């Protein structure tokens, strides 16, 4: 079944009332899950997996998919309102998003986040439809060497996220990588830095680290000021202005492309995509000198990227049966439970599933836009609550979020520790993002490098002789050289990133 016939068939499948209902349920749950820090789409899907036993496979996948891309919409809400990313892919949205809130522009920020997400999600679905089979084959060529090179590319982006001190960004990144080694060695299983406790066996969980470094540290920094200076600016206007739309067009377009491509690559995912978009906009956006101080490009680009990536990450799963990230692995489990083994023949053997899922994703994006835009007004009202009363709520959210990961107070304690450390580091001029990014990428990268070397019997040439790996390494080199070239090209263009708070 080819493109257009497939789409027509897909709509017939997805527009059945029951299927629409499951799609709606999925996107609503996804939005809530995305807004709430501490509960992520992967965990939610895992929790709901048993509930889908009784559904037919198409409905199950439609609902679970809705949870995933829905969560990308919701994750930006807390990032913008209180500087706590609901998902790791909303981390960079915190920068300009929260700055916009502090300047009374939370409404436009939330609105643009929803619109950018919608455009990217829809474009991603179109991309899925057109490109799926071909691009999917590339995922087959991904071995440990490609993985390692991709992680390295991701890590070099760290250099741009550290405010105006490269040295401090590197220090944070190295610390993040070091923290990533805590736990069991990914290849040999040897315990590292566990000090004999069970708690650290799996390493540091991301949620307490996030909550601490972003949520608690932000609260501490704000509360340090005298009460008069704790207030956020009164919100003015709920809708993005015409200038906002004009400024955001480029970032959304670039973010969509970046996100889609990175989402397809195994291990890429929404987080790297959003960071790559932010870094790109730092260079290319119309208001790049204002990035970090409330430029709407800092919200539009990354939000487009993470939604496009979420959509793109379905490709390896639906065309080859390879999960591109943890959420896709959950989807694979869901499909397997229903007796379906995704692979190259899925499109022909299960046209209902393939085309039905794709069209439901389009419908889901429409639902999410309709859902989210009115909520902007509601969320902005929350900001009217005086900060000292909002604070215990935020802290409570962080505490619950951390505690709920394993039910151990150790995780909550970790969060408090990172919160205090994060605050101190901020006062000393360090940014949290490089540490968190390195923490996320550290373990997969080490595993990939060691596996690649094991397979090549210790030869480093493998990273250069395999074409995809080589391409990624060249991209890494280019991104490192770019600031130098930029300076040579035009002395007036900002080659140093603006200082970030």
């Amino acid at each position: 079944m080819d493109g257009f016939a497939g789409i027509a068939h897909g709509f017939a499948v997805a527009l059945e009332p029951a299927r629409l209902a499951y799609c709606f349920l999925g996107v609503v749950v996804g939005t809530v899950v995305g807004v709430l820090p501490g509960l992520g789409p992967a965990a939610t899907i895992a929790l709901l997996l048993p509930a889908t036993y009784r559904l037919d496979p198409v409905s199950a996948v439609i609902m679970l998919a809705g949870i995933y891309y829905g969560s990308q919409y919701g994750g930006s809400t807390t990032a913008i309102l209180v500087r706590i990313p609901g998902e790791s892919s909303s981390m960079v949205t915190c920068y300009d998003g929260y700055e916009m809130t502090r300047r009374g522009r939370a409404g436009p920020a939330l609105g643009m986040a929803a619109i950018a997400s919608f455009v990217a999600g829809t474009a991603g679905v179109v991309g899925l439809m057109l490109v799926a089979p071909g691009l999917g084959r590339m995922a087959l060529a991904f071995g440990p060497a490609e993985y390692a090179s991709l992680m390295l590319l991701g890590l070099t982006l760290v250099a741009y996220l550290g405010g105006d001190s490269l040295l401090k960004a590197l220090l944070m990144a190295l610390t993040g990588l070091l923290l990533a080694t805590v736990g069991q060695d990914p290849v040999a299983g040897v315990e590292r830095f566990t000090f004999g406790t069970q708690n650290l066996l799996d390493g540091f969980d991301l949620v307490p680290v996030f909550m601490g470094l972003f949520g608690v540290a932000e609260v501490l920094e704000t509360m340090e000021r005298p009460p008069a200076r704790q207030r956020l600016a009164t919100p003015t206007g709920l809708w993005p202005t015409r200038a906002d739309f004009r400024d955001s067009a480029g970032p959304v377009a670039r973010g969509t492309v970046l996100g889609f491509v990175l989402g397809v690559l195994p291990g890429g995912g929404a987080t790297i995509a959003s960071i790559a978009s932010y870094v790109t906009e730092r260079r290319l956006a119309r208001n790049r000198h204002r990035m970090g101080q409330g430029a709407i490009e800092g919200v539009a680009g990354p939000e487009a990227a993470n939604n496009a990536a979420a959509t793109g990450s379905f490709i390896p799963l639906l065309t080859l049966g390879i999960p591109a990230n943890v959420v896709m692995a959950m989807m694979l489990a869901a499909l397997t439970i229903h007796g379906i083994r995704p692979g190259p023949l899925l499109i022909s053997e299960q046209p209902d599933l393939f085309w039905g899922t794709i069209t439901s994703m389009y419908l889901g994006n429409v639902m999410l836009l309709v859902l989210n835009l009115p909520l902007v007004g509601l969320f902005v009202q929350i900001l009217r609550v005086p900060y000292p009363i909002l604070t215990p709520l935020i802290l409570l959210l962080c505490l619950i979020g951390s505690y709920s990961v394993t039910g151990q107070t150790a995780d909550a304690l970790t969060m408090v520790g990172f919160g205090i450390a994060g605050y101190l580091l901020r006062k000393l001029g360090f940014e949290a993002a490089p540490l968190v990014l390195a923490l996320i990428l550290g373990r997969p990268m080490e595993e990939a490098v060691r596996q690649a070397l094991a397979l090549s019997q210790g030869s480093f040439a493998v990273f250069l002789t395999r074409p995809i790996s080589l391409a990624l390494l060249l991209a890494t080199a280019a991104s490192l050289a770019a600031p130098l070239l930029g300076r040579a090209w035009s002395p007036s263009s900002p080659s140093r990133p603006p200082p970030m708070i």
Partner: protein
Amino acid sequence: MSEAARPRGPRWRRADAVAGAAFLALAFGAWLAGRHLPPGSLRQPGPGFFPLGLAALLAVLSIVLLVRGLARPGADLPSMWQDRAGVRRLALIGAALVGYVAVVEIAGYLAASFALFVVMIRGVGGYGWRAAFSAGAIGAAGSYLLFARALKVNLPAGLWLP
């Protein structure tokens, strides 16, 4: 972040120097805790390769920062820490957080959360007792309903609840 550039106080108070020393201590600690791990070789990295290598790199860069902090005039340790009220607020928040984690499994979610609200709103925010108590009750109960009932999150029940 960009505080006054004029250095004040003894050299060791420079912000960068303190930061550099802290990271150096972290690197040293990592080496201490991980030096028993087999490093393997460059061609066949073992469990200790990355941790020890990273600790070494961290040490080098932190020394750079330390030296830079001592040598050049730069930002002094943030002057905020001379504002008593601000320090008191932060200390109270920090203590409240640690206290919360310490007692939540003994006193239960509701009691601990209520206490957190009261401490924050009365102690840190400076509002009256009535505001603190009512906000605490609403906040603790409301969040309990949302998380424990609607979302089925496992919240600690405390030792004295069934």
